[in-house]
Each structure stands twice: as C-alpha cells, then as structure tokens.
C-alpha cells in the first residue's frame, strides 16, 4: 500500500527546510528493529523520514535536551508530533521550558500505533480523541480515513486497582526488584528535564543511590509524584526500560486519579495551569481528617 502520508511529510519537510521555515527538524527514521529519532538539517535527507503505525516515540523530550535545547533561542525547530505527543509539548510550554514561537509543529493524523510485539494497537491509543492534532502549525494526513480506536486506555492500571493491597505490594516489589537504576525512564521522559534530579541530590540524600528495593521504590514513587498532573501517558518510560518495568502504569494511575477527581488532563491546552501549582477552593477533601 502506498504511504501517501509519508510522501506528503517528506515533501513538506523538504519545503520547510528549503524555505528556512525550520533550520532543523526532528522526526522518525529507520532503526535496527523499528523507528528511531532522526534529525534532518539537509533537505535531501527528508527522504529518510518515515511515518507509519510504528512511530511510537514521543520526540518532545528532545526539545529540552542537548543539542536542541541550546539552539532553542531564536531558532525554528521543526518537530513531528502525534496528537498525544503534542500534549507533552503543551506541558513544556506551560512550564516555560519551550517557547511556542520557536518551534514548528507538524501534526500527524494518526490511526493508532501498533505494538512492536504484535499485540495490536497500543493501550495508550484507546479512546484517543486527538487522532487529528489540533493547534499544530500544520496537519499531515487525511482525517477522512480515520477509524475510531475503542477500548479502555487504563485497562492495565485498573487490573492493578482490582488487586488486594498485599497483591499490589507483591506485584510492585517483585517488579521493582529488577530496576537497575539506569534512569532510562527518566531520560526518556519528555517531562523529566530537571538540570539536577532529586536522585542526584546528596545533601540530604533523599533517594538511595543503590538499586536496593527500598531505593527503587522511593525513586519510582517520587518520580511518579513529580509527574503528577504532568504525565501525558506517552509510555516512553516503559518503552525505554530494559528490564520491562511498567513504569507508566504508575504515572498513568495518577493521571487517571487526577482525571476522575479533578477532571484535569495534562497538556490538553498550552495555556492550561500546571495541576500541582494550582488549586481550587472546592478541591476534594474527603480524605482529610
């Protein structure tokens, strides 16, 4: 089947680079087994860009990392986003990490991302309401060809919520015992951009440096708290984990809680207020004595 969307993307990127609308563009390229980030500066290299149902990566994190972070001021950086990735960009804008006028967003109409393991459309895509990204500088793809993606995007989270407390404890402790503290989850997260992570602070040392179970639990708990109201459920953390820890189940549980209790979804709009940096007089307080 001809990939018209990909062809159109390459055409547009070539134009944007030729015209100088963007100086560098970050999109998807081919990797050993699937997709990897591709920086395009030379219009001729636009041919190397790919777009297909395996373009799972959320590239927004590169905006706040070297080398793009350094060229951010004044430069126009092109970024290819799916509707869900755009939420991460919005959070970065809300938190003043990225200036909207410095980036040029190409939104891809998306029919859902297939899992690499062949188990169908990813859980994170279920119930997607941003298949056609809105608010990007341009959209590539045909909204007419979309199919609705049904299902519960929190199915894996709810599976754990249905467990008893001891079952949950044993699930998390046995899963987290595999953690080697490589910090791939943190580095992959588009929203973990702190110059100095709390794990690196030594006075006091809040989180044990060693990959002991207590240190691992503290790390993942605190990281999840730091993503409360910020996590856009892109799943980069779990995808990056070399030992298969479902890190995003933690952050998505919090996202679900915040959605249900506060009707708040992270990154829905660029001028939204960060969840934990704001409050309402009538926020829930039924848990307080």
């Amino acid at each position, binding site marked *: 089947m001809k990939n018209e969307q990909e062809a159109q993307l390459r055409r547009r990127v070539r134009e944007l680079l030729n015209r100088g609308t963007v100086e560098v563009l970050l999109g998807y390229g081919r990797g050993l087994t699937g997709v990897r980030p591709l920086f395009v500066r030379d219009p001729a290299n636009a041919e190397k860009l790919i777009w297909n149902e395996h373009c799972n990566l959320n590239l927004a994190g590169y905006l706040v990392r070297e080398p793009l972070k350094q060229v951010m001021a004044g430069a126009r950086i092109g970024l290819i986003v799916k509707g869900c990735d755009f939420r991460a960009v919005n959070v970065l804008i809300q938190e003043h990490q990225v200036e909207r006028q410095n980036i040029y967003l190409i939104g891809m109409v998306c029919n859902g991302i297939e899992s690499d393991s062949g188990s169908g459309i990813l859980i994170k895509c279920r119930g997607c309401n941003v298949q056609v990204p809105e608010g990007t500088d341009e959209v590539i793809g045909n909204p007419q060809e979309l199919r609705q993606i049904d299902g519960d995007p929190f199915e894996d989270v709810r599976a754990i919520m249905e467990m008893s407390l001891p079952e949950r404890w044993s699930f998390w402790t046995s899963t987290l015992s595999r953690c080697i503290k490589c910090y791939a989850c943190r580095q992959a997260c588009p929203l973990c951009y702190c110059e100095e992570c709390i794990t690196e602070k030594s006075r006091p040392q809040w989180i044990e440096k060693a990959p002991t*179970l207590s240190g691992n639990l503290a790390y993942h708990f605190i990281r999840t708290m730091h993503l409360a109201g910020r996590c856009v459920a892109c799943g980069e953390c779990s995808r990056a984990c070399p030992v298969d820890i479902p890190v995003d189940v933690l952050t998505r549980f919090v996202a679900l809680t915040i959605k249900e209790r506060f009707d708040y979804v992270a990154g829905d709009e660029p001028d939204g207020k960060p969840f934990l940096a704001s409050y309402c007089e009538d926020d829930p307080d039924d848990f307080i004595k």
Partner: protein
Amino acid sequence: MGERPIRIIAFLCNWCSYAGADLAGTIRLKHRADVRVIRVPCSGRIDAAFILKAYERGADAVIVGGCHPGDCHYVSGNLSARRRFLVMKQLLEFMGIEPERFEVVWCSAAEGEKWAKIVDDVCERISTLGPFRSYKALTASVLGPGREIVTGEE
C-alpha cells in the same frame, strides 16, 4: 504483641497544626506518646520524599498536618498541598501500602483536643495493623540476607 512500640512520624506546619499539637501538651491532654513531631514551615513544604524517608527509617505511619483552608499563613500553601496529599495517598495505596499508614489532617492552633484524638485514633489503628514490616523487609531484599542496610535505629 510485646514488640517494640509503634512509631509514627508527624509533619506539622508551624502555624496551626504544630501549635495545636503543642496546645494538646500544654493543657496536659492525655494522648498516646508514639508520635514524633517534625515541624515544617507549611504543609505546602511536605514532599513525597519526606514520607518515603520516614518509612525507610522505620516509621509505621506518617501523619501530615496543616492549617484549615483559609487559615494558611502563606494564604494557599495548604490548598496546593491538598492536591498533592490526595495523589500521594492514592499512589501509596496503588502500590499496596495500607491507607492507614498515611493520614492527612487539618488542625488549628486551638484544636488541641482534635490533635489528641487523632493521635489516639491513628495509634490505635496502627497498633491493630502492626509495624510496617513489609517496608522494612525491602532494604534487605536486594543485598541478600545478612547484608541488609541497617539504617533504622532499632
């Protein structure tokens, strides 16, 4: 039973809840002595790391306390904290920690009696629940038996 007494850490804001706890002592309200209080400037200062560190160092439960809404010395520290505490409480439970081990309380400087009652209630529930053995077991697991990190001052 017959084990070491339970140990509960309370992080209380300087302006209301700490003063409330202080009042409970000053007017000699009889309440359980298993709670150690750590004073913080505002409930807004209480970070998730505090709670985890308390468990790591042997706390069987943690109480966090702030001013009633509207009374915050810094206007809204407690209201921001309220959101965070809700998430923390839910997340602890999601990871399998009994909800009794993390309590949130609003307590004014005049509510010595409320504080005394909360302390008694929490202590009672934690005594029934028992020490937080599952958390203490964590430090031993990766390093193997006999090599556990002993940081609690048992």
